[in-house]
């Protein structure tokens, strides 16, 4: 078990999230990709907290999880509001801020 393999796994997870953000057209699909990216960051924090023995890194992974919960709640509220007003959930079709 090497540190490097887990680091590469976190990189791969991050890049798959980037790929999802670039290709998805559905707004909830974008949100799923963002969750992947946040998870990659949290995995990195936990990995390096284990390597260097820092408790603060785990605390920051905890903050990442908490802020991801906030982000998901706000994002889904925005998507529901958007779907009610513009009758679409595709991120491409939304080009006004004030409806």
């Amino acid at each position, binding site marked *: *078990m*090497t*540190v*490097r*393999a*887990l*680091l*590469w796994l976190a*990189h*791969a*997870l*991050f*890049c*798959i*999230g*980037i*790929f*999802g953000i*670039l*290709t*998805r*057209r*559905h707004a*909830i*699909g974008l949100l*799923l*990709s963002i*969750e*992947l990216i946040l*998870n990659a960051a*949290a*995995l990195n924090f*936990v*990995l390096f*907290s*284990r*390597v260097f023995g*820092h*408790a*603060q890194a*785990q*605390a920051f*992974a*905890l*903050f990442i*999880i*908490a*802020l991801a*919960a906030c982000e*998901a*709640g*706000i994002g*889904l*509220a925005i*998507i*529901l*509001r958007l*779907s009610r007003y513009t009758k679409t*959930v*595709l991120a491409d079709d939304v080009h006004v801020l004030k409806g």
Partner: protein
Amino acid sequence: MAAHALVIGCLAALVLLSALWVVTLRNLFRAALSLGLVLLGVAGLFLVLEAEFLAFVQILVYVGAILTLIVFAIMLTAKLQGSVTAPANRQVFPAAAIAFALFIVLVSSTSALVPATPLSGDAIRLDVLGQELVKTLVLPFEVVSLVFVAAVIGAITLAVPRHAKSTKRS
């Protein structure tokens, strides 16, 4: 040690495969369930890295709360599409090239920093983490709770229909 490596290999394969499902599956509901698999795999990796508290928080908050919220939103907006199937992805090959190039850049820039050694030293103890949260990191901790309050108020304000608000005022 071999069993350890086997567990990590299985978890890594699970995480990578279901992460690919999350970004490629046309059916959004299945993509959300694959995200659940990714989150469970990452929680397993947290357990392997001896961060048990974080693994439980991950399962509780991510799989318990966030995933339920996402499935709710998918079902509420599925009516607009006629189904939960998302439209075809666009620009798959340029995006794959960009993501792969980014992966190469990340790997080549970090491989010199980290030695390819097995993990050593002690795990982080939970009481040390708790002490950090209420001593050194007390300001970020409180700011996170402020962000939570703001997020709850914002989500309620956004999600309440406009006519419901106007009837309440009159």
